[in-house]
């Protein structure tokens, strides 16, 4: 098999990993104004992702690096073309990341509130814009004969892009709320379940719209993997409905797992709809970037395949171990006890 095709899927898996993992981080951050009614509950919410947010964020760096190494042309066209959205994502990720570290450094409620807002906005902006970016990759953008993007920011803010953007925002928010429900107790746990119920209907509507729209888009282009696109879309939809049902039935773990499955298959739906393109051109199909004309040489791909084969399973193993170590709920008592110790 041509290794470039394998790498299309490895890069896809890395982005799936990123969206599932940092997705609920974004959701937790966005849920902060709704679930964090006092300082203790805000700390409960933030500490659910305390030990893991940075390791979740590393997935985007690895995904980006592998995209660069396996598909230099795709990386170059995408990053120079989607300049302003990526700039906003970068600024948001910076603001969010440092806020986790800074908010607890001072015992001053105004100081903490400022960083709470930065966490929320810093989570919402990437949650929306990643959706917009992926949608535009799938839908196609104007690209010239030199493989350069010729549109502007407004080219990207089209109906499909925005619809998918809102979908990812809602999906990540819901997934994050499930995670808070799974990892906390008391009022926060209760509020998280209630918020999950409220989010169910809008999320289902947007997700269904995205799935149907994407299937039509893929069908219109004669996508070779149309059957897989449809299958993934259906699985994503079923998983989403199941997660809603589990949340209503007070089954936190299953709701979260179903939420993760939803995101996995939602991203796969989009990724498979793209195949065998990597960035279709709306200017002229001859200018489109495909798996074969955007990839690295077989030698580079071969070296990278060995690295991925050896190290990805290792990464999954030690990251799973981390999740196992930090599996306990963040209870109100833990936080209150921690505050006492800190004051002492």
């Amino acid at each position, binding site marked *: 098999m041509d290794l470039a095709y394998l790498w299309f899927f490895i890069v896809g898996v890395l982005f799936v990993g990123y969206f599932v993992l940092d997705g609920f981080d974004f959701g937790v951050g966005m849920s902060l104004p709704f679930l964090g009614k006092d300082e203790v509950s805000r700390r409960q919410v933030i500490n659910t992702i*305390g030990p893991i947010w940075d390791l979740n*964020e590393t997935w985007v760096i*690895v995904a980006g690096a592998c995209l660069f190494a396996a598909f*230099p042309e795709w990386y*170059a066209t995408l*990053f120079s073309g989607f300049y302003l959205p990526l700039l906003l994502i970068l*600024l948001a*990720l910076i603001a969010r990341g440092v806020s*986790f*570290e800074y908010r607890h450094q001072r015992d001053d409620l105004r100081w903490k509130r400022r960083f709470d807002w930065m966490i929320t906005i810093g989570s919402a902006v990437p949650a929306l814009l990643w959706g917009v970016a992926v949608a535009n990759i799938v839908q196609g953008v104007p690209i010239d004969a030199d493989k350069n993007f010729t549109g502007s920011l407004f080219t990207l803010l089209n109906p499909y892009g925005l619809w998918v953007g809102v979908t990812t925002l809602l999906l990540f928010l819901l997934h994050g709320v499930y995670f808070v429900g799974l990892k906390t107790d008391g009022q926060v746990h209760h509020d998280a379940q209630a918020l999950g119920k409220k989010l169910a209907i809008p999320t289902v509507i947007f997700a269904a719209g995205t799935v149907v729209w994407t299937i039509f888009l893929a069908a219109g282009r004669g996508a070779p993997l149309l059957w897989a696109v449809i299958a993934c879309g259906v699985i994503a939809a079923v998983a989403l409905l199941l997660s809603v049902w589990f949340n209503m039935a007070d089954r936190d773990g299953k709701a979260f797992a179903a939420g993760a499955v939803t995101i996995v298959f939602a991203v796969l739906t989009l990724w498979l709809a793209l195949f065998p393109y990597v960035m279709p051109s709306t200017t002229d199909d001859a200018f489109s970037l495909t798996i074969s004309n955007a990839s690295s040489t077989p030698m580079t791909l071969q070296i990278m395949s060995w690295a991925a084969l050896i190290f990805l399973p290792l990464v999954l193993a030690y990251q799973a171990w981390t999740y196992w170590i930090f599996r306990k709920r963040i209870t109100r008592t833990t936080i209150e006890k921690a505050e006492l110790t800190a004051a002492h």
Partner: protein
Amino acid sequence: MDFLDPLLLARWQFGLTTLYHFIFVPLTLGMSLFVAIFQTVWHRTGDVKWLHLTRFFGKIFLINFAMGIVTGIVQEFQFGMNWSSYSRFVGDVFGAPLAFEGLMAFFFEATFIGLWIFGWNKLPRRIHLLTIWMTVVGTWLSAYFILAANAFMQNPKGYQMSASGHRAEMADFWQVLTNPVALTQFPHTISAALMFSAGVVIAASAWHLARKQNIEMLRPALKFGLWAMIIGFVAVFLSGDQLGLVMVQTQPMKMAAAEAMFNSACGANASFSIFSIGTPDGTGEVWSLRVPYVLAFLSTHDFNGCVEGINDLNQLYTTQLFPQFADQVNGNFAPVLWVTYWAFRWMMGFGLLSTAIAAAGLWVTRKNAKRPVAGWMWRLAVWQAPLALLGILVGWIFTEMGRQPWIVFGLMLTQDGVSPNVPGWTVLISLIAFTAIYAILAVVEFGLIVKTVKEGPQPLPGPDDPDPSDVPVDQTPSTVY
């Protein structure tokens, strides 16, 4: 000058964001090792002061770590955003070390750092100690891959040009990884990082010792920092010497530019200038203070060796080696001379100065010293941290500015690497945004570090307190946010 020139703006952004990123990187590289050593000493001896030092410097290390990650993402993204032509040209070779860094090192360090911070009372002590050593391995490995990628820009190896000539393709990955520039740059970078981290340890300890606080704990820390500075300097010096030899071989123009030396010279004439005034157009020299033979020795390890000058190299490059690029650079393949000349000197100057202060510090704090350390000496010791950092930053300015006008030496000019479709105003927005957010963060970050330093380590337990070796671990909050 055109202020909306995308090339100029993209270069400013790269320089700014890279230097800023490299404030946090060396502290991560060095401090992780120091913290691991402190924790190991505590683990071995059970002496609680080393536990408190682990926590104290661990806190400073962590404040930095988040900044290191978020500013690192910017680095990876901007190759594609601002330098898409470069990315297309080198991606097949240059991308692989970056991908390896992600798969092998970066995942690793981010996971283990999380386990270290949050694992204090969740993991068995030995496993917890292992996590900080794993973090050290991860950060150092990460540094190696990034330096290997950078080495390809300084001295492309292990590649061949594609049939159409539009990109560099991988020929031998082992050669990419064992590029002599990477092999020498790595120990140079690591030991410089140790110097800066030692400077931070010295500064933090001196601040308290000057006020006669936490003496029992911070005096050993101070000694540790002073020795680490000296050892770091010896390693910087030896690796820098090797790096110089490699540079003369691979980028002779950079060495000529470091010396602002226009004409080739041998032996006594290949002198090292300590100070020099050039003509305004940068093509000649008005006056300089010189030490004979030194440059010849630095460049070739032979007092009678010969060093090529800028004019002769330009002649060679224009007519023989790179005639296809000669018109684009107007026949001048030299970097901006005043930058390389002074950056080279400031790099060495800052390094020597911090080492001299450290040596003096060891002398005045020796065991049988008769006089107490004077107040001004403590204040001087606090400056150890910024001095060593400045040395590192000008060192990178030298390395990267000295590479100009090339983005990949001999293969691609910097001006050809920039994204052709990104308008100047877009880069300007991004430059302003990064400058603003980085400036704000610098203020907050600096304030937090100063605050953490001033708070000092947890005080040692008194004689009536419970057994210290049990208490701290169980009392550590598992939630730090």
